[in-house]
């Protein structure tokens, strides 16, 4: 195609070059991010894999690296996720449903929205302080896994609410109107149509929020999670420790062996995250198949 055949498009070649440049630039940036993650994983994997064995998963921490394990930290983290999810998920989804489906625009609603957005940005250590004052001391729950879970729930509640609301907003109004035009109440339209449609987005928001909760050490340290315990929690009011704290504890020791243990702890933490994500994908898949 010469310029003479199409006199009106003289800059076509240049536009194609720019488009190719943009495409390659974005691809480069993406792969750069992926590569950094891969490098991180590889380093952690190489350092920690040797320490990862069944004994590691079933032993308590010890002064001797060869005998040390994550049992107490893993149990603490699992207790923590379970309880945090128990508190934050129902409240978060209920708040999102109320704000999106039932509340009317007005000053009260705007005030709530602004507050939630602000709370989502508050540093996690502040939630630690709040948890210490209110749950550990105020409600007298002590340094328990319950107090830890309640603190973490407060931490991730704003992000769950925001994510769930966005998921509900994405459901077209025509769906709700169709349901209500058939003589359904608003709650029936939400429960049978809007909520199921929003479920994939809500699940993603929950998993992202819980993933953040798992990795936080600062608020847990603030409320007094221990760093060296040789027992697992038997109930919600027991003392506990968590994987991030254990990892931090090992990583800050001078002996290189403990760094290897820390890396192995990171691998265990990543495995827990992976399982959570897989569970979310499975739930999403099943809910999409039903409809």
């Amino acid at each position, binding site marked *: 195609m010469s310029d003479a055949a199409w006199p009106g498009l003289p800059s076509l070649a240049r536009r194609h070059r720019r488009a190719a440049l943009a495409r390659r630039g974005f691809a480069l940036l993406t792969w750069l991010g992926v590569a950094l993650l891969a490098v991180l994983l590889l380093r952690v994997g190489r350092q920690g894999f040797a320490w990862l064995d069944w004994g590691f998963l079933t032993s308590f921490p010890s002064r001797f690296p060869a005998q040390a394990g994550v049992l107490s930290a893993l149990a603490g983290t699992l207790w923590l996720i379970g309880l945090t999810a128990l508190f934050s998920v129902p409240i978060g989804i209920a708040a999102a449903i109320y704000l999106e489906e039932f509340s009317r*625009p007005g000053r009260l609603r705007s005030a709530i929205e602004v507050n939630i957005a602000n709370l989502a940005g508050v540093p996690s250590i502040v939630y630690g302080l709040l948890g210490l004052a209110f749950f550990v001391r105020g409600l007298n729950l002590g340094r328990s896994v319950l107090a830890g879970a309640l603190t973490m729930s407060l931490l991730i509640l704003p992000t769950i609410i925001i994510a769930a609301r966005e998921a509900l907003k994405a459901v*077209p109004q*025509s*769906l709700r*109107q*169709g*349901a*209500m*035009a*058939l*003589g*359904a*109440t608003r709650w*029936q339209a939400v429960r*049978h*149509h809007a909520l*199921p*449609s929003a479920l994939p987005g809500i699940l993603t928001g929950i998993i992202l929020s819980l993933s953040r909760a798992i990795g936080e050490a600062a608020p847990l340290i603030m409320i007094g999670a221990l760093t060296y315990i040789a027992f697992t929690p038997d109930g919600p009011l027991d003392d506990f420790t968590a994987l991030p704290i254990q990892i931090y504890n090992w990583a800050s020791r001078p002996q290189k062996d403990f760094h290897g243990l820390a890396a192995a702890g990171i691998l265990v933490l990543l495995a827990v995250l992976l399982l959570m994500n897989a569970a979310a994908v499975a739930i999403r898949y099943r809910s999409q198949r039903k*409809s």
Partner: protein
Amino acid sequence: MQETPDLKPPLALPELILETRALSIFYGANEAVKKVSLPIPQRRITAIIGPSGCGKSTLLRAFNRMNEFLAEVRMAGEVRYRGRNLYAPDVDPVEVRARIGMVFQKPNPFPKSIFQNVAWAPAINGLAAKRELPELVETSLRQANLWDEVKDRLDASGLSLSGGQQQRLCIARALAMKPEIILMDEPASALDPISTARIEDLLFELKERYTIVIVTHNMQQAARVSDYTAFMDLGVMVEFGETDQVFTRPREQRTEDYVTGRFG
């Protein structure tokens, strides 16, 4: 036959099942519907025609209280169902919508199976027990002329149907509630001519048992299908009468201009 005192000249109509009396609907400061008195005779098809933005959809939605979901909507005047005020404080809007069905312009089936689409509303309204649902679904799909096409795949998603089929599914869904009145807001405007023709045939069949109010911007459709026609322009009901009369011997100049295509 009833006299309609608000219409000039008064018309002798079959018994009215719905009517508006000097109904005005405001969106904020904008008066979208201006003092409209529209009679809806029972078991007939009444078409509301008019150019875009004339208020016909807003008027239609007043009959099943769907305007309430829009912000800042105010009403003056009356809407009556069998002589009773539809907006009286002791009237439950949920019950109104259970008795007055609606089909929307863009087909909006639920992202559920075909069976569930039709069965859901009667089930949650308590109108049918679980074991009665399969028969109800079949009856409704047959009435909507969709049964033969979907009877082997009732579990398939409602969204897997073509546009025309989806709209007939929405009609079946409305019929499953056994309403007395069906409101249709441009039901065929998003469909191809063949699907449109099928829906128009369907309307002739439904007329025997249901009262239908259809908003359409397609004049030929109104002329083909309806018994009575109301012409609206800029929120005002310019003329109402038997379809034949409105299209061939309109009383108002504006009506004649519109139906002959001089504007709109």
